[in-house]
């Protein structure tokens, strides 16, 4: 994606027909496959009700249309290596993009014909007239067959043309698209923010159509705003206008500290004021995001810092939730003796912390000596075991089995009771605990313990050789992670008022892991941003996000994100030396080769069995 660097010599553009045909066809077929898959996964139909721009573009169509653009772009993108001469991009790249789009479009045409003539609803539930109608734009079979190759070609050409745009044009196009999409996606939040307490109806009336989606004038305005911001960005890159981020990075010493203080105070004040301006639904959303930020910060310590791939993290969330529920609700399982009091949330929290530490030790101790893959699988098992225990007949008398624990009271502060019916109050409570978690993570990261975690993540046996007590230090990571997750569980219980084993399925662990990975492991700000975007927009395992229509596809998208991240930064996901070495085979072989050279030099060609690269 990056433009060739100054060090690279540029060769003249190649002729338009001088294509790598095989590559073009492969990308085209892949595109066709993806488009058909997305169609049959029912994305276009179920997202069709959500408008982006009324009445031209729905999320349903968008779910198809962006793909040819991306494919048209990547078919001719190449990795730019220093010191290699590349051909300038030109008509050839545009044509390649168009052809890829054309082939992909033909795939959809074929699908249209097939749906029209055969009924495969039995194996493929989404093989429906609704899909057919949508793919024909409501204009009958002939139109449907012809329009897709045309559209595909056009979009592919656009994708390919991105290569020949100047960096400036590219930036501006990116900002325009981003602004339109962003303002459309965040519709609920923006309307809520501007109209709930503030008198800015006229702005939202301008931008949005009554039944949802941008109005046409709104879309144009959004595009203009995006274009303007993009242009500012270009100016900033050229050094014409100042860039706050660059300036910030150059600060050192006390100035940096002062800038940090200002940033922290601003964030704090914004967090305090924002909920006041927002209505119920958006505050609910924020509260959910907060719960997951808390969970993600905890898992970030375990996976990101200490490199322990814990797939059963939900267990600690469950322990926090259940312990709070049982200790505060009058409606808990009936096997409890009377001396177990029904206590205040804060009193319960102390027990929750203790229990979380115990569970951390209990789950941590047996798995801590395992490495990599084994540990992941065993923790996965523990996560399920805890949930099944809560569900079981054996503990059912205490945990309510499948009926769960209901009537959980909120947090009584004397002057106000924080409970689920008041998401704003819940958000404030979550925010306080998030602040604690952020502070703790930040301090730990800089501490001796944090260093030890990172050393273990990088190379456990060497860490041991440095004198780090790896067992204790790893247990500490488990325990800190467990406590943070249990906080989230305790707030969750007070928020939802009743909890069931189904609130704590494996999916929760997976979603938190995706948040941590996407956010960038070991990176506090990234993790918070990851949680805000993923949970806020897509939603949590059971919590709706901004794009409520996406809920069916949430898992698909989380899965796709996970795959993408793994391909992009594999050693990030399984941070274990052996894996890293496997993944960097070339370097390893290079080492082995050097070694054999040295051996041969010194031993006059004596055979050195060990170093032969297998």
């Amino acid at each position, binding site marked *: 994606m990056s433009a060739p660097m100054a060090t690279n010599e540029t060769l003249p553009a190649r002729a338009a027909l001088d294509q790598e045909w095989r590559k073009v066809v492969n990308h085209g077929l892949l595109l066709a496959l993806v488009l058909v898959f997305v169609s049959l996964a029912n994305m276009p139909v179920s997202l069709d009700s959500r408008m982006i721009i009324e009445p031209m573009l729905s999320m349903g169509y968008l779910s198809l249309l962006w793909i040819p653009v991306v494919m048209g772009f990547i078919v001719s993108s190449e990795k730019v290596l220093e010191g290699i001469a590349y051909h300038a991009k030109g008509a050839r790249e545009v044509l390649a993009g168009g052809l890829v789009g054309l082939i992909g479009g033909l795939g959809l045409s074929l699908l249209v014909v097939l749906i029209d003539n055969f009924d495969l609803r039995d194996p493929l539930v989404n093989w429906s007239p609704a899909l057919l109608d949508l793919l024909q734009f409501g204009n009958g079979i002939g139109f449907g067959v012809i329009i897709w190759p045309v559209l595909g070609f056009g979009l592919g050409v656009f994708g390919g043309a991105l290569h020949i745009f100047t960096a400036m044009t590219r930036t501006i196009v990116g900002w325009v698209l981003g602004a339109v999409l962003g303002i459309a996606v965040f519709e609920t939040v923006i309307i809520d923010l501007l109209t709930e307490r503030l008198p800015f109806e006229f702005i939202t009336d301008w931008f949005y159509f009554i039944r949802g989606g941008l109005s046409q004038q709104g879309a144009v305005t959004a595009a203009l705003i995006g274009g303007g911001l993009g242009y500012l960005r270009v100016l900033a890159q050229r050094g014409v206008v100042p860039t706050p981020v660059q300036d910030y990075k150059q600060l050192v010493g006390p100035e940096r500290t002062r800038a940090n203080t200002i940033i922290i105070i601003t964030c704090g004040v914004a967090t305090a004021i924002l909920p006041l301006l927002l209505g119920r639904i958006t505050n609910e959303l924020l509260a959910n995001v907060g719960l997951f930020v808390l969970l993600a910060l905890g898992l970030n310590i375990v996976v990101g810092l200490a490199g322990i791939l814990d797939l059963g993290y939900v267990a600690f969330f469950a322990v926090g939730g259940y312990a709070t529920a049982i200790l505060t609700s009058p409606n808990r399982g009936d096997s409890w003796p009377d001396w177990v009091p029904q206590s205040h949330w804060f009193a319960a929290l102390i027990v929750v912390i203790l229990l979380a530490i115990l569970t951390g030790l209990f789950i941590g101790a047996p798995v801590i000596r395992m490495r990599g893959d084994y540990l992941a699988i065993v923790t996965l098992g523990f996560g399920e075991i805890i949930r099944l225990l809560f569900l079981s007949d054996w503990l059912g008398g205490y945990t309510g089995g499948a009926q769960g624990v209901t009537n959980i009271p909120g947090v009584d502060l004397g002057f106000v009771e924080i409970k689920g019916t008041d998401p704003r109050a819940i958000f404030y409570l979550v925010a306080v605990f998030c602040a604690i978690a952020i502070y703790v993570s930040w301090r730990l990261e800089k501490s001796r313990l944090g260093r030890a975690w990172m050393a273990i993540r*990088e190379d456990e046996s*060497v860490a041991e*050789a*440095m004198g780090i007590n790896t067992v204790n230090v790893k247990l500490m990571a488990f325990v800190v992670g467990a406590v943070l997750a249990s906080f989230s569980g305790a707030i969750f219980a007070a928020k939802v008022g009743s909890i069931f084993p189904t609130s704590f399925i494996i999916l929760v662990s997976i979603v938190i892991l995706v948040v941590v990975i996407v956010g960038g492991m070991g990176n506090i700000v990234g993790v918070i941003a990851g949680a805000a975007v993923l949970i806020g927009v897509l939603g949590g395992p059971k919590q709706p996000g901004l794009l409520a229509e996406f809920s069916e596809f949430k898992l698909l998208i989380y899965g796709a994100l996970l795959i993408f991240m793994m391909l992009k930064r594999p050693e990030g996901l399984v941070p274990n030396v052996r894996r*890293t070495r496997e993944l960097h085979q070339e370097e390893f072989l290079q080492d082995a080769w*050097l*070694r054999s050279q*040295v051996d041969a030099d010194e031993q006059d060609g*004596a055979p050195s069995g*060990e170093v032969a690269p297998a």
Partner: protein
Amino acid sequence: MSDVTDTSTPLLEFRGVNTHYGAVHILKDVDLAIYPGELVCLLGGNASGKSTTLKTLLGMVTPTTGEVVLDGEVVNNKPTSYLVERGVTMVPENRRLFKRLSVKENLELGAYLRTDKDGIEEDLERIYEMFPRVKERLNQKSGTLSGGEQQMVAMGRALMARPRVLLMDEPSMGLAPALVQTNFELIQQIHEAGVAIFMVEQNANMALSIADRGWVLQTGRVVLDDTAPNLLANPDLRASYLGEGDR
């Protein structure tokens, strides 16, 4: 760097040590003794148990029978940190830096068990003096250093623990022949500063040329135990040592 008081009792010692990995017998009745301030080397072919010897010395592997003795105290069941605290430090095979951490962080991790802030600063300075190259690259991720630079950081990291005895596992492995020479000079330099050195090497001639004494390990058994000049002159050495080479 060391406070040598008595050179007549061994600093670190193996008394009839046997080590198993699962049921596999690796070290067989090994006796070793490293005296304060000495430079000794352990030779042996591939898979003869050299790395295992080091791991056992450092408490990362517990011997099945026999005793590991530090300053006259049996330390078989002590954790590695106990030995590191008392001045036993290892430069692992293949250097093994913490790749995604910076050079500085790697060095600081070497001093993990130390609490004397001033002393740590002092030692950092000393290491910068010894390896000016390292000082230029303090904030670089150590995984991106060249092999030779990595070797310097690995040695620096070990020195940060203020060792009395440095265990080095094949320090010249993977280095260009020219660097191997420099590397041995560095080892001698560290030795002259008073640190005892226990070096595992496949490069017998080089190692013996700077060592005081040496042992030859063959399938986990010590087959030769002599002074360096005697070992160099020993006609059996090459035969027994190379015999292990092709496994």
